[in-house]
């Protein structure tokens, strides 16, 4: 998908991608010549259709994890399906979520919430962080390059 500024006859450059939290997706594009910015706004059905193909509008910012679609999109999956998500008595303790972080996570679209939650949980576990807060989420976003999460 490309955007053309017809007036300038210039291909517009990708700006940013946002997930507002209501199942929609927003992506902005800017004309490098005149500076005009347009936004691509997809409805939940369009967003879901793209997600179901295992692809990401704007390109992937993190490598695909194995069984990503199954792990993030199946609503009836068991919590202990995989060793890295199952509780292990001898493994590192999973970080807790502050109420503010939970509220922020709840604004992530439900069809990617599982994946986003796992990314933050893995980030915290790998660094021995006991509680995930909005500040931790911001740090993780910056370090991992997670736009709009």
């Amino acid at each position, binding site marked *: 998908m490309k955007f053309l500024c017809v007036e300038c006859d210039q291909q517009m*450059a990708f700006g940013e991608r946002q997930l507002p939290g209501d199942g929609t997706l927003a992506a902005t594009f800017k004309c490098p010549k005149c500076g005009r910015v347009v936004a691509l706004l997809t409805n*939940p059905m369009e967003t879901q259709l793209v997600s179901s193909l*295992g692809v*990401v509008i704007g390109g992937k910012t993190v490598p695909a994890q*194995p069984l990503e679609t199954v792990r993030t999109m*199946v609503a009836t*999956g*068991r919590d202990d399906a995989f060793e890295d998500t199952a509780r292990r008595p001898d493994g590192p303790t999973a970080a807790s979520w502050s109420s503010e972080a939970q509220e922020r996570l709840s604004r992530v679209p439900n069809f990617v919430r*599982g994946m986003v939650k796992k990314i933050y949980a893995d980030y915290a576990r790998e660094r021995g962080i006991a509680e995930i807060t909005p500040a931790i989420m911001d740090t993780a976003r910056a370090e991992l390059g997670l736009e709009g999460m």
Partner: protein
Amino acid sequence: MRTYHQLTDPDRSGLADQIGAQRKRVAERLAGVRRIVAVMSGKGGVGKSYVTANVARALARARKPVGVLDADLNGPTIPGLLGVNHSPLPAPGDAIEPAMSAEGVKCISMALLLDDGAPLAFKGPSAESFVWRGAMEASALREFLGDIAWGDLDTLLLDLPPGMQRYIELCDILGNPPPVLTVTIPTPESRDAVRRAMRAAVDRGSELLGIVENMVGGELRGSAGDDLAHEFGVAVLARIPWHPTADIWSTLGTRL
């Protein structure tokens, strides 16, 4: 106004590249698999999973590395038939380790990933979910092929659900139509349904490996196996009675 191909800067989303990467991942993951066999039938309830599991067990007993991919995402039964109980699947790196039966059959199935007794349900807009559900299931099938550490296998058996949709998805994902083992029961109703599936497989370019006629010798009357074998020029590889012996599966494994 210029068109897409006239704009020379790269497409930031690169959806075609993302799809290409998915295909490459499947091809690389299956590089150690000598052959893939799709077990299919146009009709439900003929015993595809039963045949698949027992052929896999026979191959494993013959010391041939074998795996089973349960492509029946909505009615998965392979773990139960192989005697595989749930335990968390190891996820050591860029692939998930498959479950392993006591006889050494590797397997992956949605039954291992779903809550006990829960149907397969996806997150997403519930209204008109038919628009995206098929694509989601195809993605799950692709991930079962490309994200499971199958390793070196002599045979990877794919247990397909009734109908043709999953077979078509499989052909698209693999890029090449897989050889097909067809399962039927003796009745004319089964023959007619299986005939359509076999024709579709031939049209797609799949090699027909042969026919297994299941549930032979009981109340089910007919000659579906022979009729289809004659029509498509393939062999009836096995006729499975209601109470088969292990020898039947071993023989079928060697004829496959």
